[in-house]
């Protein structure tokens, strides 16, 4: 039996919007609408879907950057060896939870403070959480720079972000994240801004670190080919809901939900002789079917831990 690191149950995040400055009409946008998943120790889950489907909102709710509307997030507490709901944490426990869950952002050009040098950027989380003495902290920074492949570290410590290339900056982001020795890292498209040639080295670095440091990722991307490389399981999200979740190769070989089929068929294949057949569906139709389902849609297991949403999609098949 695999032990779960994190369990998410019926997570919801709604945003209220008003139609205009003076309008009293309020409407609710259901950015994340009742999603559930779990991530076992040492495994990575890919969260895949189009822009605006709620991937990043899910990530921010998980990292407590935004307060969730409802739902449960349970995290394995290494001290008590139990799953604990994050709603019941006191201040002290909350701090330790935050240490264990970190995030890597999409844009390495905007997520690093341009006025700080690399040493200060990586040192900051240690200072905030007051870990170790000053010299221990500095040693930790040097050590982590070596881990992420920025060697020799002395060359990088005094530099500023603008002096580094995109790939190097993303390595700094990863170093800043991993210096806290988190168990769980949420990655929001960390390679989408990088060049193809550099992308693989960052992805390989993350995979190796996951193995060495026993980190689990929630890897957010819109590119299934990237998710395939990075993740053990993939969850496909559409309009705030997870429509299909399965082990990576199983999902790609045997997609059930029409949206999953559409996503897979829209990835260009690096082979000019390959004839890609696009599985076309009507998104408005699909949206209607899913949003009409006012009760939370359930997921059904079709074998091999392959779960598909149970709403009726026969109309668009």
């Amino acid at each position, binding site marked *: 039996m695999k032990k779960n690191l994190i369990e998410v149950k019926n997570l919801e995040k709604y945003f209220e919007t008003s139609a205009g400055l003076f309008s009293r009409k309020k409407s609710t946008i259901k950015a994340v609408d009742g999603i559930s998943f779990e991530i076992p120790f040492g495994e990575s889950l890919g969260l895949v879907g*189009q*822009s605006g489907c709620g991937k990043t909102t899910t990530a921010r709710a998980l990292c407590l950057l935004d307060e969730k509307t409802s739902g449960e997030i349970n995290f394995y507490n290494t001290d008590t060896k139990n799953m604990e709901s994050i709603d019941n944490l006191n201040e002290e426990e909350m701090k330790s939870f935050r240490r264990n869950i970190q995030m890597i952002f999409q844009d390495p050009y905007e997520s690093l403070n341009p006025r700080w040098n690399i040493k200060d950027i990586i040192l900051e989380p240690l200072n905030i959480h007051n870990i170790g003495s000053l010299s221990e902290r500095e040693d930790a920074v040097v050590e982590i720079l070596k881990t992420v492949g920025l060697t020799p570290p002395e060359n990088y410590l005094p530099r500023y972000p603008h002096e580094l*290339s*995109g*790939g190097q900056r993303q390595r700094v982001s990863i170093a800043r994240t991993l210096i806290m020795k988190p168990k769980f890292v949420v990655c929001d498209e960390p390679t989408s801004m990088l*060049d*193809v*040639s*550099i*992308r*693989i*080295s960052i*992805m*390989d670095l993350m995979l190796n670190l996951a193995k060495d440091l026993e980190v689990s990722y929630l890897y957010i991307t*819109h*590119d*299934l*080919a*990237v998710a*395939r*490389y990075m993740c053990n399981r993939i969850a496909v999200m559409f309009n705030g809901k997870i429509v299909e979740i399965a082990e990576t*190769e199983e999902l*790609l070989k045997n997609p059930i939900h029409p949206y999953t089929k*559409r*996503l*897979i*068929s*829209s*990835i*260009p*294949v*690096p*082979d*000019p*002789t*390959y004839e*890609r057949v*696009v599985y076309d569906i009507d998104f408005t139709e699909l949206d209607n079917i899913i949003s009409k389902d006012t009760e939370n849609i359930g997921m059904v297991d079709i074998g091999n831990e392959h779960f598909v949403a149970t709403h009726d999609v026969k109309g668009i098949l």
Partner: protein
Amino acid sequence: MQENILEVNNLNMHYETLGGEVAAVKDITFHVKKGESFGLVGESGCGKTSVAMSLVQLQADNAKISSGSIKLDGQELIGLSENELRSVRWDGISIVFQGAMNAWNPVIKIGEQIREAIREHYPNNSKLQNIEKIKELFEMVGLDESIIDRFPHELSGGMKQRAVIALALSCNPKLVIADEPTTALDVVIQDQILNEIKKVQDLLGLSLIYISHDIAVIAEMTERMAVMYAGRIVESGPTKNIFSDPKHAYTRALLESTPSVVGEKVKLNSLDGEPPSLIDAEIGCSFSPRCSKPTENCKSGKSEMGLIEVANGHFADKCCVECG
């Protein structure tokens, strides 16, 4: 024998900066046949966009084309006056710029902005004729007529990009350059735009230069392609041949680093290091510092760069072909 719509020979372009001359385009030679789509692939900063800008001569003020020739349908473009160039741009070569969907003027309706371009080149057309033309273009790229009266902020990213393509087609150009037209879009929208471009190309028999960093997109969109590295074309030829039998180490590295959703899961290889600075003088093969197995010859800088023909219409850089 298909006629060439565009012939570029030994084109050199550099930027004059405070740090020195940045040689962005070095000795580029390629041609595009009528009705063909030609791909240009390479990583950021390799000079793809500089080539595109040189073709329409819209490069930045500090850029100088030092030598070479660009012939569009037999007409030499280098040395034309600004006025003559104005008639070539859009009429002869139109370009879909990178991130062009964010370049719409936010306070002018989409239709009006396209009409402006048509008016410039066909001053005798009536307003009604122009609007008919725009409706025709919109139908081609899959946009509703009503978009003509919309402002840019009312459209989604995909719709704006479609409108940019309509704008590029508005003056019946002989050649369209698409510079990373789908880079900021997500996969499903990218797929729709790619299909739209293919459809339009078939319909109009358009000649197309497709620029992208994504080799998978190039594989789908083009018949012939060129791989650029550090300002040079290091390999060019029919897309199928380059994918099945890549000759240059850089092309191989690009192919090995691209993940795919079909076929067996393979271990991808990363390409470490960074492209060389284009300010420094080139010594020997510019790819040798990143090459997986450079010979003594490559490293010492004795090898010369330059394309040689390895198969019918398939060219690759001398240095790499000799290494094998």
